[in-house]
């Protein structure tokens, strides 16, 4: 094919508009789903055209690496305290900014569980996106609150069992609280689930724009190096092991929290 035959060369997909190329490239491990989730966040913020008002907040963990590359304002906070800083920004600026937090499961529900539940209890108008990969990925794959029963991690070499507890279901937990307006769980392990999760995330940010209440989306995420499997096997692992334990879908979607 010669280039003269081509009239239009339209961009379809790839690097989102709100993305800055880091000279060293993306810092995550091969097959990690965190950058896909960050691509979805950049797409959702770009589609809703709120990038000038958006502040994204990261805690500590693999989600912090979003900080250097996303082309809108962000703050990196202490471990687990992203909802608190989001509350401060939202309230001191009289509700004008769109506050999004990007957190992992260790950041959000292990060390930051108090902050998260307190933010839901106050019905803060912020949106929390939590990537759930079933372990503490940054520090080498220790057991996290979302580790599945029987899952082998660095600190549960025989598999998680009765003596080490059971996985926490965060969207179902938050759906029982009155301050929560929206809670859902998505996944990005297939193209269809990618598009479904994008809709869930857009609805969650829209709840904040409509001033309804707290919104939360959990996204199942692969961590191939810490699960000790290849990236393609990790997709199958999400399908066969994680989704039966963590069902996908919306758990709460209300128009008014009263």
């Amino acid at each position, binding site marked *: *094919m010669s280039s*003269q*035959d*081509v*009239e*239009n*060369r*339209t*961009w*379809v*997909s*790839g*690097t989102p508009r709100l*993305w800055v*190329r880091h000279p060293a*490239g*993306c810092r*995550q*491990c*091969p*097959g*990690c*789903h*965190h*950058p*896909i989730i960050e*691509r979805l966040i950049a797409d959702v913020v770009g589609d809703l055209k709120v990038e000038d008002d958006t502040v994204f907040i990261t805690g500590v963990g693999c989600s912090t690496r979003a900080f250097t590359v996303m082309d809108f304002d962000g703050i990196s906070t202490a471990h687990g305290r992203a909802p608190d800083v989001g509350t401060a920004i939202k309230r001191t600026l009289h509700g004008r900014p769109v506050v999004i937090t990007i957190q992992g499961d260790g950041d959000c529900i292990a060390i930051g569980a108090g902050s998260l539940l307190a933010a839901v209890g106050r019905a803060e108008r912020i949106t929390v996106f939590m990537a759930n990969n079933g372990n503490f990925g940054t520090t080498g794959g220790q057991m996290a609150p979302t580790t599945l029963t029987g899952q082998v991690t660095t600190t549960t070499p025989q598999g998680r069992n009765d003596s080490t507890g059971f996985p926490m279901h965060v969207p179902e937990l938050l759906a029982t609280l009155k301050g929560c307006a929206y809670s859902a769980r998505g996944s*990005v392990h297939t*193209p269809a689930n*990618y598009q479904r999760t994008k809709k869930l995330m857009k609805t969650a940010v829209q709840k904040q724009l409509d001033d309804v209440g707290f919104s939360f989306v959990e996204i199942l995420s692969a961590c*191939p190096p810490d699960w000790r499997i*290849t*990236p*393609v096997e990790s*997709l199958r692992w999400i399908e066969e092991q994680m989704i039966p334990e963590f069902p996908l879908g919306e758990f709460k979607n209300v128009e008014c929290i009263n």
Partner: protein
Amino acid sequence: MPKGEISIDERFCKGCSLCSHFCTRGCITIPGDRFTPQGYLLPVFSSPEKCNACGICGWLCPHFAIEVYKLTEKEPAAK
């Protein structure tokens, strides 16, 4: 003529092979004898004529190495 075109930036690719797994038409393959500057196995856009610019590899590349473009032909009168 092909309907789509992708570009793979080998500086950013980390060889996770999700693109070749998700490509339903088998356009992207990993030959195994080519490597990125970081030492990972490099995927190759081996069958451009089969690509229909669905964009799935561009969505699901975790390291922002793939850009997908849709190609449209010139009108016959304009040739």
